[in-house]
């Protein structure tokens, strides 16, 4: 049965079991030669080196264009624009936290509550009443998106509702970390006030590449450079913290 929480980014990894053939260079310093690559190692000598990747071959592109040699991740759809300091209570009001995200029945329900905490000044609902899915693929935010609680329900409900990415001027750290750990929405830092540049309903594409990423607003015709994902990159590329740890040999492969 499809695990409803399979990381969007890890989906491909589950289909392709031979990770070692993707050209990644892995470095482990436990010195073993052909030990089981997934045997846990002692942390005493463990010094995790970044997984060096020439190309992120592990991801399915969403654009209709064929993937170029430069391996592209793309998210395309309508934008939903919010302001600064959108805290976790606005993303998912606390009364809905009784829902357990790892429970597959409840996971889909979570989507119906996404961004329902926004004040009445937001005329467009992110998810229509009675629905569990949103028509918006990209959330555009201001400063400090996701501030407040450590509740993972926040990125999870956005992902459950069908959002693919959040492009914000800046993120609060726990939200960013949870988005990366769960793989539910791809968090990207813009350098400019994209929340002022875009309007809810604009059609946009987020293109992620090795060297740079961009947000293209098709409605206005403008493009915005997005910051590199930074240290979270290897974790996202691996498919979340568990996949990353497995590849690094920190934990054994998933139980059968």
């Amino acid at each position, binding site marked *: 049965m499809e695990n409803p929480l399979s990381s969007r980014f890890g989906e491909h990894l589950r289909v392709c079991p031979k990770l070692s053939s993707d050209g990644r260079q892995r470095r482990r310093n436990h010195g073993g030669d052909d030990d089981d690559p997934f045997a846990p190692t002692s942390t005493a000598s463990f010094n*995790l080196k970044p997984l060096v990747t020439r190309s992120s071959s592990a991801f399915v592109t969403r654009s209709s264009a064929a993937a170029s040699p430069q391996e592209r991740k793309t998210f395309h759809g309508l934008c939903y624009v919010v302001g600064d300091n959108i805290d976790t209570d606005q993303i998912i009001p*606390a009364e809905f*936290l009784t829902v357990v995200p790892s429970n597959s029945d409840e996971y889909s329900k979570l989507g119906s509550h996404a961004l329902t905490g926004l004040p009445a000044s937001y005329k467009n609902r992110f998810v229509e009443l009675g629905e569990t899915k949103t028509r918006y693929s990209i959330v555009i935010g201001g400063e400090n998106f996701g501030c407040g*609680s450590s509740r993972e329900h926040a990125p999870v409900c956005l992902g459950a509702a069908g959002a693919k990415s959040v492009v914000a001027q800046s993120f609060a750290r726990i939200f960013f970390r949870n988005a990366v750990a769960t793989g539910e929405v791809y968090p990207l830092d813009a350098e400019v006030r994209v929340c002022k540049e875009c309007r809810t309903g604009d059609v946009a594409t987020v293109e992620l590449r090795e060297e740079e990423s961009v947000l293209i607003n098709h409605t206005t015709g403008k493009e915005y450079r997005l910051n590199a994902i930074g240290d979270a*990159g290897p974790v996202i590329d691996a498919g979340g913290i568990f996949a990353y740890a497995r590849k690094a040999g920190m934990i054994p492969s998933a139980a059968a």
Partner: protein
Amino acid sequence: MAPQRSSSTSGSVKTGMTMTEKILAKAAEKSQVVPGDNIWVNVDVLMTHDVCGPGAFGIFKREFGENAKVWDSEKIVVIPDHYIFTTDKRANRNVDIMREHCREQNIKYFYDITDLGDFRANPDYKGVCHVALAQEGHCRPGEVLLGTDSHTCTAGAFGQFATGIGNTDAGFVLGTGKILLKVPPTMRFILDGEMPSYLQAKDLILQIIGEISVAGATYKTMEFSGTTIESLTMEERMTLCNMVVEAGGKNGVIPPDATTFNYVENRTSVPFQPVYSDGNASFVADYRFDVSKLEPVVAKPHSPDNRALARECKDVKIDRVYIGSCTGGKTEDFMAAAKLFHAAGKQVKVPTFLVPATQKVWMDVYALPVPGAGGKTCAQIFEEAGCDTPTSPSCGACLGGPADTYARLNEPQVCVSTTNRNFPGRMGHKEGQIYLASPYTAAASALTGHVTDPREFLQ
């Protein structure tokens, strides 16, 4: 990703480290770390509660297998506290789910509650997780404590690294006892000067957040030191560190001293190793405050950094007052409110809700005499002042909660609260207006029906 620097092989002179860097280095079994390093860290204590616990264990089982065992059944503390006294079936179910996990995994510390009708009938039940962790001796200098709650940073008051994580990270820790962390740079806040009698730690942290903004400490450590800090009790230090997350901070930390050791040693016999920032450690920012010059402040709706002097808000009419939460619902918080009520000798003008954080706090409210009140307890003083009866200990309405939560803001009212966040809808109603304040300020405001500087009653 920044290249890893392994100082043990570089042959360079060891640079000074901050407290946080030292704690993380030790937990990662390294001799040296610098901000920016991504390291695997051993976890000493993992805390979870009724809202995030089911999800965290769900992920643990999904990733490690249905029959997997937690890394150490004595290092996990499960504290139901968020949605307890409610008829919400899912909320009740979540406590049952945690009971099942704890039984299966033989979790040593599970502060269970089964009789929701009378909290006192549950000998194991504690209440608010961050206060319970401290009271039960789980907070110790030099350790790494993680919790599935943003206010886990409270424990930094004990000179340890403490921060909030999500369910997925917690699921990972449950199975491995480790977490991948990036070493944060440290911002130093030196608070000197004698603490005025009308000022509390809540005023200090609101002052600081107002100074640096809700994202001023994002990804950073906030280290508090100075003569004022040294004069603070443990509960006041906890209030200070509690709201570090409201400035975006990764963790807060206070150098442990005799006050810390006294508190800790009275509650646990587990040995600990305090650490201190080196004299030549690097800090990314330095802030100094002369506390003797500070005045009581509030955070106006709708942001914890929307700082204003309490006295400048005296025309703001309020509808209710809430005293409770990990931030402002500890024994000393209630003592302070009672002290002000007693000094005033008047009745409150608005409904005043009292939510002790834990069973212990509740008992203190009913048993401990308030200094200078002729032997009266907090509970007696509260009753005479016309406050609501102190209710069952839990997180209560700090975060709204299920519809039937006691003191939930169900209408667009104005509330002065000793809690930690005031974003729209935080306590329930989206148009509710929450003024964050110290217990003194909250009590003073209850007496006048307006936002009030406690000096009106405390000079």
